[in-house]
């Protein structure tokens, strides 16, 4: 007779094995490794919650300590490879295969381990792409997640950093998987239920709160005049003419400069209410002055940011908050919002080639993609019109039929022509290609494909790629804003001049900006302390950003 319940029976057996260590659902932290050995089977697909920010660090340590004779060859399917222990799992043979999205702080070591054959790589994904695969062919057998608190029934309160948790739990709990949560404390009643208890099988109380990285705090004191100039160019040359109200900002210093220029320079240009009012964005501290000045109507967040909790709680007109008053974030929904409901993505990158392809991969570092490719791509499934989207579509295809012409998402790369240590932003060939060849990858890790990029902003000006009609024009438009890099000095001066006359390249003076006006006095806040003042004392920056 055919059985159709094997998955459920297997899950019940795992839970039964784990239940021997539990009181109800609660397992003592000292038994966490034994719990792993009871529940996890060799070859399992495991999602060890490593998000962009919060980390299930206790469960990670517990998994690392298992006897590899009992638990081995795991296939890790997690969005963030962030902690050193995430990679130690592969060194110990507990894990074997990896599918992931982002590896920021571990980017150098992960590259080394891939070259050394320590990790069998599935693929490097974007967040949405990996989440999608959780429901099709990468469904976890076991999810190890992190929350702020739990009650004895397993109801979880994730706090402001909800991030990936609902998505991971949905895929695991409803497809015969086991969900284990580490929590900072067990309480009688959680402040709000972010994850219902019937989706959670075991709860471990950690002796210290889960680790959260303040990834989105940019100190205004470190913003340079060139970054201010690029910000002024973007505001006057792109935000204003397209009337971009719905957008996502990257996390670099150029976009932090823009956030701090809105209440000063943007105000002077009369743009309040006309641009930058609706965001898919983490709660960037640099956005506080714009919020306080009445620029921002609404922000949906991927995650939270360390120190922003009380400020967010007091500004629920702007942020999404729960019945308890604190932020509710959700990475999958916010990524979807960035993909479908925003008219612009603007962010920085490490390398741009002469076709406009960009990558944050260099030969010795594989940082992964995170969310930028979702935000920084044209959503082919989009159907609702908006003025910026339609205008970009018109520029790309002026002869097309009005009623049949697709609009275009504005995808803007912004940066100075030279980065840290005088490394050029523009290259003839991406390092990602060399890496793909060395690792025998079928696809080079490109962050944003050139055909999705609409504008490139540097201190030298704005290249509008929508107005370029062929590959040669695109190349010269890119060279024409590439400054004194080899790519920039390799320009065809005559073609660049022609492109400038057509508006496909615009210099600061072409839009009435004097580079000498790009001064730090234009920033609404010039230090972290200024941001605290703007917030009325509600923003509590982490100690590493305090110098007073």
């Amino acid at each position, binding site marked *: 007779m055919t059985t159709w319940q094997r998955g459920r029976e297997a899950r019940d057996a795992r839970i039964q094995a784990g239940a021997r260590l539990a009181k109800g659902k609660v397992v003592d932290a000292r038994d966490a490794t034994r719990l792993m050995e009871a529940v996890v089977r060799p070859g399992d697909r495991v999602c060890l919650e490593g998000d962009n920010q919060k980390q299930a660090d206790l469960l990670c340590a517990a998994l690392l300590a298992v006897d590899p004779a009992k638990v081995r060859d795991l296939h890790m399917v997690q969005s963030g490879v962030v902690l050193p222990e995430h990679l130690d799992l592969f060194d110990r043979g507990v894990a074997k295969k990896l599918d992931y999205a982002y590896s920021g702080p571990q980017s150098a070591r992960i590259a080394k381990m891939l070259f050394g054959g320590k990790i069998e790589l599935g693929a490097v994904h974007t967040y949405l792409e990996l989440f999608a695969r959780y429901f099709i062919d990468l469904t976890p057998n076991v999810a190890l997640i992190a929350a702020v608190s739990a009650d004895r029934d397993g109801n979880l309160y994730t706090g402001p950093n909800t991030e990936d948790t609902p998505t991971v739990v949905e895929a695991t709990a409803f497809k015969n998987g086991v969900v284990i949560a580490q929590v900072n404390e067990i309480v009688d009643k959680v402040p709000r239920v972010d994850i219902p208890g019937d989706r959670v099988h075991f709860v471990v109380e950690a002796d210290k709160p889960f680790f959260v990285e303040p990834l989105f705090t940019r100190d205004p004191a470190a913003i340079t005049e060139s970054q201010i100039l690029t910000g002024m160019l973007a505001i006057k040359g792109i935000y204003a003419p397209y009337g971009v109200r719905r957008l996502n900002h990257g996390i670099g210093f150029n976009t932090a400069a823009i956030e701090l220029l809105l209440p000063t320079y943007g105000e002077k240009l009369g743009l309040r209410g006309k641009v930058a009012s609706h965001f898919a964005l983490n709660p960037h501290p640099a956005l506080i002055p714009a919020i306080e000045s009445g620029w921002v109507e609404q922000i949906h967040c991927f995650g939270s940011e360390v120190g922003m909790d009380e400020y967010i709680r007091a500004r629920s007109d702007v942020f999404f908050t729960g019945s308890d008053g604190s932020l509710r974030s959700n990475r999958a929904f916010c990524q979807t919002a960035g993909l479908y409901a925003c008219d612009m993505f603007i962010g920085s990158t490490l390398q741009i080639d002469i076709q406009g392809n960009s990558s944050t991969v260099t030969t010795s570092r594989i940082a992964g993609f995170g969310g930028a490719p979702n935000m920084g791509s044209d959503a082919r499934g989009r159907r609702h019109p908006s003025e910026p989207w339609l205008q970009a579509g018109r520029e790309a295809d002026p002869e097309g039929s009005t009623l049949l012409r697709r609009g275009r998402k504005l995808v803007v790369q912004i940066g100075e022509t030279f980065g840290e240590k005088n490394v050029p932003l523009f290259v003839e060939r991406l390092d990602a290609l060399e890496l793909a060849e060395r690792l025998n990858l079928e696809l080079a890790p490109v962050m944003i494909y050139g055909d999705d990029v609409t504008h490139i902003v540097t201190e*030298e000006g704005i290249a509008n790629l929508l107005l370029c009609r062929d590959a040669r024009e695109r190349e010269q438009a890119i060279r024409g804003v590439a400054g004194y890099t080899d790519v920039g000095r390799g320009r065809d001066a005559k073609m660049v001049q022609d492109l400038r006359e057509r508006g496909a390249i615009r210099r600061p003076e072409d839009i009435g900006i004097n580079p000498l006006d790009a001064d730090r006095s234009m920033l609404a806040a010039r230090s972290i302390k200024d941001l605290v003042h703007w917030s009325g004392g509600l923003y509590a920056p982490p100690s590493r950003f305090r110098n007073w």
Partner: protein
Amino acid sequence: MEDLNFRHATRQRAAGTRKLAVIGVVASGNLEVLAERVLPDSECLVEIRTAAAGFGEVWDAVIADFVKGYSPGGLRFSINDGGARPDTVSLRLAQAARLMEEDDQ
């Protein structure tokens, strides 16, 4: 350390009467520019002392564009460079040229 000198003929003399100006700081990724009105009106000299060797070609291009854009005739610029990026160099030179356009008090 590397020393570089670039001498250019200029279209016209730098406006203003100011004799001397200093801008910027010697720090990593930054530079200090001293501008002095000490040359004939049709000449401009840029003397560079830089911590980052091997960027002569880029300096050449940056200085040539600066002289073309501002025609700072009569000015000598002495640069003490801490490995600044070209965009910062262009900005500091432009700032120095603007200061020299002021009238001497």
